[in-house]
């Protein structure tokens, strides 16, 4: 596909369960970002991957959150022992890469609801 693809588009889970969210970035984009957007709010940075460098995890809200990026392409965001406050839209974005002024291209997000 031409754009950033995220799956699932919606996820409903029970409190305490683990969830995995997937992101397929645009082919050739070396930078990948995860953001969280709560209802009516702005975008909260979570984590950033650039090539083979160590990811910037400074935005992860707790150790229940983790992310990995395999082969420099697909990324998975994992939330363990989900809590109701984790309910939000999780957005993935990719860009050509750092070192150039390149905008982020976003997917349509995964809406996570923790019941």
């Amino acid at each position: 596909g031409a754009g950033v693809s995220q799956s699932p588009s919606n996820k409903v889970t029970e409190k305490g369960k683990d969830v995995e969210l997937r992101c397929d970035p645009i082919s050739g984009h070396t930078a990948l970002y995860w953001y969280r957007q709560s209802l009516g709010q702005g975008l909260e940075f979570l984590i950033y991957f650039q090539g083979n460098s160590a990811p910037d995890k400074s935005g992860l809200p707790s150790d229940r959150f983790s992310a990995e990026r395999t082969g420099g392409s697909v990324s998975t965001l994992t939330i363990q022992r989900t809590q109701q406050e984790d309910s939000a839209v999780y957005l993935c974005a990719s860009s050509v890469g750092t070192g150039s002024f390149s905008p982020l291209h976003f997917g349509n997000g995964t809406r996570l609801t923790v019941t």
Partner: protein
Amino acid sequence: GESVGLHLPTLSVQEGDNSIINCAYSNSASDYFIWYKQESGKGPQFIIDIRSNMDKRQGQRVTVLLNKTVKHLSLQIAATQPGDSAVYFCAENTGTSGTYKYIFGTGTRLKVLA
């Protein structure tokens, strides 16, 4: 902490009028700025960007103005159309020191009145 904010949470304009959405940023080291449009149920969509070595950039029906003196960014939409109704975010990025965390504000909702 560093932040990007917006002056007006909601802006209502008549169809055909021009819209101006404002944004204040706080990091004087930021040298790259982007405007995004987000429609309900979708991810943010790139509209236009500007680097700090410019003070104005024009696209199709949109213009971004950057005033580094007062750390202010604005998005002007000419002849606003119903399809322009959405939430608009500005974002800043320092683009330096290998850290590229784009900072977003809470957004301004633009409502176009028929």
